[in-house]
């Protein structure tokens, strides 16, 4: 340093120690209660109004599904042909359809089939997808190749197209299915084509987690590969799986309605929104008495929307990276 005289503005400055108190390096803030990842996510979820909107709607929908009798005492299968296509009136808020069924009652009772199919399919898909994806990602090599290629084969077939083919051939061997048989058939068929998506998500998450150092640390402790998979890898891969599951729930409900609309989903004896929308087809063509179509379709839309909103809120809470700012 040839020139040691500081230039103006660069003279020695020392902040008064009183204004810049030093903290002990490495102190632990013990003021707030401890928070795990799930608790943190819940806190985030709680502050999101989208979550509350969807939660209120879903609670209402679940009450309808479980106790339809609370909302109406009219039998959804009781036809009054004399009142066919009659518009909304007192006591029959949504009017009557072509068969003379009370539309309000059918909308209420139809919720059960839609929601049941959606939730059961989601559970199946998540279970199969998580298991196959986690095994493929964790063990890698041949296991991965085999599982991933099988998943690719199913993934290549469009959900609805595959379901139509499978369901129509199922009708030949198992035609008279009844309520629960019908629901189960749709659930299984949707799950057959739905699992590969979840497999991919789970496999990706597992691949990311398994390369982290705490997995090596657990191995160095002497934990076996299997216990590592169950104790560390899978629990840490759950977040994206849960997000996908919640979002896809709405998709499965729509898929069920589509299949029923096409006449191959739930049997006509089952009161469901898809079947009612199908029955309202002729009204769409004639353009009159659209209430027959509007109410079941509206109920379907609101239900799907609620699940999608919940999925969005859950994603924001569990995966802050994906959040739009």
């Amino acid at each position, binding site marked *: 340093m040839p020139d040691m005289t500081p*230039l103006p503005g660069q003279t*020695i400055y020392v902040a008064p120690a009183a204004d810049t108190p030093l903290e002990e390096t*490495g102190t632990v803030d013990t003021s707030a209660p401890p928070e795990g990842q799930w608790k943190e996510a819940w806190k985030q979820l709680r502050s999101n109004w989208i979550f509350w909107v969807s939660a209120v709607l879903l609670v209402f929908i679940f009450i309808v599904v479980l106790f339809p009798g609370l909302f109406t005492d009219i039998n959804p299968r009781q036809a009054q042909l004399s009142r066919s296509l009659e518009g909304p009136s007192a006591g029959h808020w949504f009017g009557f359809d072509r068969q003379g069924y009370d539309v309000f009652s059918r909308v209420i009772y139809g919720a059960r089939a839609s929601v049941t199919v959606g939730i059961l399919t989601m559970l199946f898909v998540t279970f199969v997808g998580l298991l196959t994806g986690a095994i493929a990602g964790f063990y890698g090599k041949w296991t991965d190749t085999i599982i991933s290629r099988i998943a690719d084969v199913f993934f290549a077939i469009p959900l609805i197209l595959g379901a139509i083919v499978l369901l129509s051939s199922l009708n030949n061997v198992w035609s008279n299915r009844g309520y629960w048989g019908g629901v189960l058939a749709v659930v299984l068929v949707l799950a057959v084509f739905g699992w590969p998506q979840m497999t991919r998500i789970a496999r990706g998450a597992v691949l990311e987690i398994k390369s982290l150092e705490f997995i090596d640390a657990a191995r160095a402790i002497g934990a076996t590969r299997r216990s590592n998979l169950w104790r560390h890898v899978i629990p840490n891969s759950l977040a994206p799986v849960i997000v996908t599951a919640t979002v896809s729930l709405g998709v499965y409900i729509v898929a069920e309605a589509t299949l029923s609309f096409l006449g191959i989903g739930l049997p006509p004896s089952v009161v469901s929104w898809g079947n009612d929308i199908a029955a309202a087809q002729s009204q769409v063509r004639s353009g009159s008495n659209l209430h027959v179509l509007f109410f079941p379709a509206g109920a379907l839309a609101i239900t799907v929307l609620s699940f999608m909103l919940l999925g969005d809120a859950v994603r924001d809470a569990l995966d802050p990276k994906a959040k739009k700012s």
Partner: protein
Amino acid sequence: MTEPLLQITDLQVAFRAGKTDIPAVRGASLTVYPGQTVAIVGESGSGKSTTAHAIIDLLPGTGHVTGGSIVFDGRDITHLKRREREAIRGSQIGLVPQDPMSNLNPLVRVGSQIKESLEANGIAKGKAADKRVVELLEEAGLPDAASRARQFPHEYSGGMRQRALIAMGLAARPKLLIADEPTSALDVTVQKQILDHLETLTADLGVAVLLITHDLGLAAERADHLVVMYKGQVVESGPALQILKNPQHPYSKRLISSAPSLASQRLTSQLRAEVRESSVKTAGEIAAEVVAEDELLGGEVTTAVVEAKNLTKVFKLPGGAPGRSIDFTAVDDVSFRLRRGTTTAIVGESGSGKSTVARMVLDLLEPTSGSVEFDGIDITSLRDKKQQLAFRRRVQPVFQNPYASLDPMYSIYRSIEEPLRTHKIGSDKEREAKIRDLLDKVSLPSAVMRRFPSELSGGQRQRVAIARALALDPEVVILDEAVSALDVLVQAQILTLLNDLQAELGLSYLFITHDLAVVRQIADDVLVMQNGKVVEQATVTEVFDRPREEYTRKLLDAIPGGSIELAS
């Protein structure tokens, strides 16, 4: 008298979170003169990068200037319109960003990216710009610049990318270059080359440099004027050497006493000798006990607790034709002895094979040939599950990344309990007592037990990782870059802790690091590795005082601030 080029007065920067502003920079002032190098030094979160980014209006996310002024070249640029700012950015003020890996577009040729900055600033167009790009790359020290300009970023090494970014930053001949941690992602020897080059280049061009760094040694070596920041405030500023020799503020004092490259040699080697004496004695006693009690594994008390013989690891990389593979020798004939109760450091740059050695010693990776003997037992021959488990109990690792080495879903209690549970040691009550004891050993309050890793700082997590490694009362701890990701102050604390634990528990450490500077504070023997081979093997004093190999000397020279003599 020259006018200042950049004058920041009482700058306030805040980040908006919801409806409140969280201050990140509180009343920072600094002055840069033309052609000068000024360094802002501070730990992570001190506001040093935020200050620099405020100058060029590249504050991330919700950051905004809430007060104070930034005067550049006689003009107040604090509240310029977007267009006016863009005119200054690049042409008047250049930026060399921190991470060379993510700051080049991987889909565009490097030459085209530099050309873009030339054209954006209206300096050259078309053919003339192409020619200028080659000149700039040559100037930044890239050999064979003409053909390099046509390559993509993935064909460049980290150092070459950083050179390309320097070329880009200087493309428009700015008056000020902001270098934000320009070399912290690079190996030490490359770091030195780049900084040397940057220094001569900016001196030739008369460009002022605002250097942002966490490394005090580096700052003192390169800058004329030093600004020390702490928690968003400037705590001390002045001529670099003067601050280094005579720090006034308690924070600067603490920073200087913690910097590994600046620590007094005599003091550290004396301290180390004391630790070693106590540790070797305890280690002998403990080993005799452990070996006698371990019916499964047994072994004998040898002077070398770990002895690696001709370790070689060959990885098969896919390449050539489908189904074919290319052999890559990551570790080539490495032999060493870790003396009981001492520390052996393995030093090398990235890709030297040092971590692969650690993984083989941990039996997480099988060597292609050679053997690892532990207490006289060849661990590569342990294929019985129970014996393997017994071995695991005696050797434990601590890894580099404090953010990835603990399961985020496990509470601290569960994390430390996991080894005890896996080995079925003690009842619930006994385990809790043990965990309290371990937390106490690593100087954490037992209140952290119910907390989760995300609530702790990097240093605290590393303490938890150490506590977990010690839960099984191991004889050997493998520290794989265990302090590399930490701030200097925290690093110094953890090193002290490791030394204390060694003296108390008679541990033997295998200390893997790329940073020769910290080696002196903890190691007794040093192994220098390059490209999978051991190039030099000696005691710490020998390596530092009389390095035999050219490569070791290069590593020593590259320690930032190593050349600065401090009167102590």
